[in-house]
């Protein structure tokens, strides 16, 4: 093995570790930015105030958020995996939003910091499309 490599094994090791980590994190950011989530619609408040078009747009957005943050526990099709089946939910919109915002201790993390009120509304609208 060349003298350069032997002499600089430690530096090359550090460089490799940094490059591998940077590549993994960089790839994650690039692929995440490719996800066609899109901008929030103009209106994203309580369900009662939304038009049908707003609900549809929010639900599409909510689907993207769901895939990113919820699918690994609830399944891509929301029919449950480690988390429960989310089809045909019989709880109120307020309850859905409360659960997403606050989580459930020991079972589900809180998403209040990740998704603001508009993001949670989008997830709510998506879940309401699941029969």
């Amino acid at each position, binding site marked *: *093995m060349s003298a350069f490599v032997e002499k600089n094994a430690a530096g090359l090791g550090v460089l490799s570790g940094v490059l591998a980590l940077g590549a993994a*994190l960089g790839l*994650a950011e690039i*692929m995440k930015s490719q996800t066609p989530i899109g901008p929030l619609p103009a209106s994203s408040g309580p369900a009662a105030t939304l038009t049908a078009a707003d609900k549809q747009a929010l639900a599409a957005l909510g689907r993207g958020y769901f*895939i990113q943050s919820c699918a690994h526990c609830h399944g891509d099709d929301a029919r449950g995996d*480690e988390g429960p089946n989310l089809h045909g939910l019989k709880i109120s919109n307020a309850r859905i939003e409360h659960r997403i915002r606050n989580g459930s201790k020991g079972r589900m993390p809180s998403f209040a910091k990740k998704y603001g009120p508009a993001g949670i509304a989008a997830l709510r609208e998506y879940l309401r499309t699941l029969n």
Partner: protein
Amino acid sequence: MTTDPNLWAKLHGASTHFPVALALSSVLFDSLAMAISNPERRMGLRAAGFYALILGVLGAFPAVISGLVMTRWDSLGSGPLLWHHCFVWPAFGLMVGLAVWRALARNQASSRVFAIYLALMILTAGLVAAAGYWGGELLLNG
């Protein structure tokens, strides 16, 4: 033919145990090598430690990629997933770096340098084990 919606989760579960087990095994073999006086056995244990580390790193790449695909490229999640990521990323970087150093230095390193390497490898194995623990928490407790 429909794709299993949980394919990537299953691939992650299958691949992720290799870096955990092999990092811990590498540390065990190298630690035993330091304790043993018989030169032949010491060399054999060091070789086992080396190959366990290399195989562990090779297993780490599919584990990392399948994990990222599974979480839709979320590299810093929330709740238990955040804890999992906080341990995974330093463990991954350290494991790759130490494996490269070990592959380049082979048997040229002095006892003092190897002791430093072993200390870092113990830290790495601890981080990988903690990442595995939080992965289990995600599985069991959401």
